[in-house]
């Protein structure tokens, strides 16, 4: 009656169960992923229309525009990260689980990134064409997004956990999360700009990698603690 879960197996089991469940849910409601993508495409496409077809100007603007659009697009689905689980009661079951809540948060965040961040990364080379970015600059852009968007999801998970159950939390969430992601924007867009200026990009990527590691260490734990407080 009192058999206890094995220590390490238990951690990974919770992570796997939550990851598989959330991926399955997002596969069955693809409209969320599509609306994120369409928003991204719309915002990015408005800039060439707005500022006119000046190739040099567009090339200069491209990294910043793509990065800001990616950040805003990844904010769209963030409020629902824990809110759905909160309203259908599965969040309570996760809190009562014997598995580590932090690992379950990692699973949820990874599923969120795979359904909203990763599609943005994959789509970005197509959008870079509109800005006449060179092939190598596009490569740097994709790599910087690949390193940066998981940070957005992780920082977003902390904000989403803090605001779960609050009324009108989506605006508050963006106000909480966007300032914290400014370094990601600076180093992410900065990597492409440095490449265009003929400078090395290793420093920018190292900093992005360091940011990713730090948030990966701190964010799941913080989000788990925030969830326990929010659910009281």
């Amino acid at each position, binding site marked *: 009656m009192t058999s206890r879960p094995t220590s390490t197996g238990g951690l990974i089991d919770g992570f796997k*169960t939550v990851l598989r469940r959330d991926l399955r849910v997002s596969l*069955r409601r693809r409209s969320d992923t599509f609306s994120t993508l369409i928003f991204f495409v719309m915002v990015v496409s408005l800039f060439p229309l707005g500022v006119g077809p000046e190739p040099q100007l567009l090339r200069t603007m491209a990294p910043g525009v793509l990065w800001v659009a990616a950040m805003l697009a990844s904010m769209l689905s963030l409020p629902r990260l824990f809110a759905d689980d909160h*309203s259908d*009661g599965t969040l309570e079951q*996760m809190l*009562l689980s014997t598995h580590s809540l932090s690992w379950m948060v990692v699973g949820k965040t990874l599923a969120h990134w795979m359904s909203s961040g990763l599609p943005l990364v994959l789509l970005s080379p197509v959008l870079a064409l509109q800005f006449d970015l060179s092939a190598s600059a596009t490569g740097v852009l994709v790599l910087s997004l690949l390193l940066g968007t998981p940070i957005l999801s992780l920082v977003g998970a902390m904000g989403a956990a803090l605001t779960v159950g609050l009324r009108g939390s989506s605006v508050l969430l963006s106000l909480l999360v966007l300032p914290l992601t400014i370094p990601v924007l600076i180093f992410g867009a900065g990597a492409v700009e440095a490449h265009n200026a003929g400078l090395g990009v290793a420093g920018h990527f190292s900093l992005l990698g360091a940011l990713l590691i730090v948030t990966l260490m701190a964010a799941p734990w913080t989000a788990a603690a925030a969830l326990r407080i929010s659910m*009281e």
Partner: protein
Amino acid sequence: MTTPIDLYDGSPVLTLDNVACIRGTRRLFSDITQVVAAGELLRVQGPNGAGKTSLLRMLCGLLAPTEGRVLWRGEQLSGQRDTFGHNLVYLGHAAALKDDLSPLENLLDACALGGHPTDAAAALAALRSAGLRGHERTAARRLSQGQRRRSALARLALCPAAPLWVLDEPFNALDTAATAWLSGLIEAHLQRAGMVVLTSHQEVALGAAQQQVLQL
């Protein structure tokens, strides 16, 4: 119930020791002392808003009591969060179903997260015993309210090893057949020395020998 707390004899036991709950500025209840021993059923009664759900959430460790202590086997709940979940099945107001997943997928995930992983064959059998034959793979959002309840309750048939069942209005939306099925599950659980805490507005005939009522 006046059993003193120090009569704890090593059997699985849940103790509320002078528990009070204050939500915002409202005092929902206070000075609640109650012992639930193995094989006992505790029915929590009270009008709407009396704090029944808050009390159940305290029993699960989801809500810390404002005053007093909740003890499981003589130790405070807050100190054994990692292991207590294994002893517990909590079914709250919401059915804890993902609308886009089928009852089968929901059940397998719920059991895995609850620390009682099971296989698809056992889960299918449990869903069929819950009267969901033919709906095991339908998306949960297409089920009726009663079918959603049954789908959530099917977990009870798979988790007999968890000694404590905490059920919030389990009989809501159930028809007579499902009510009889659930009563049978609860009685069987009590007979194997399990504990059940539930809230219910309806009078449900449970032939349990040890039945206590806590009026809020």
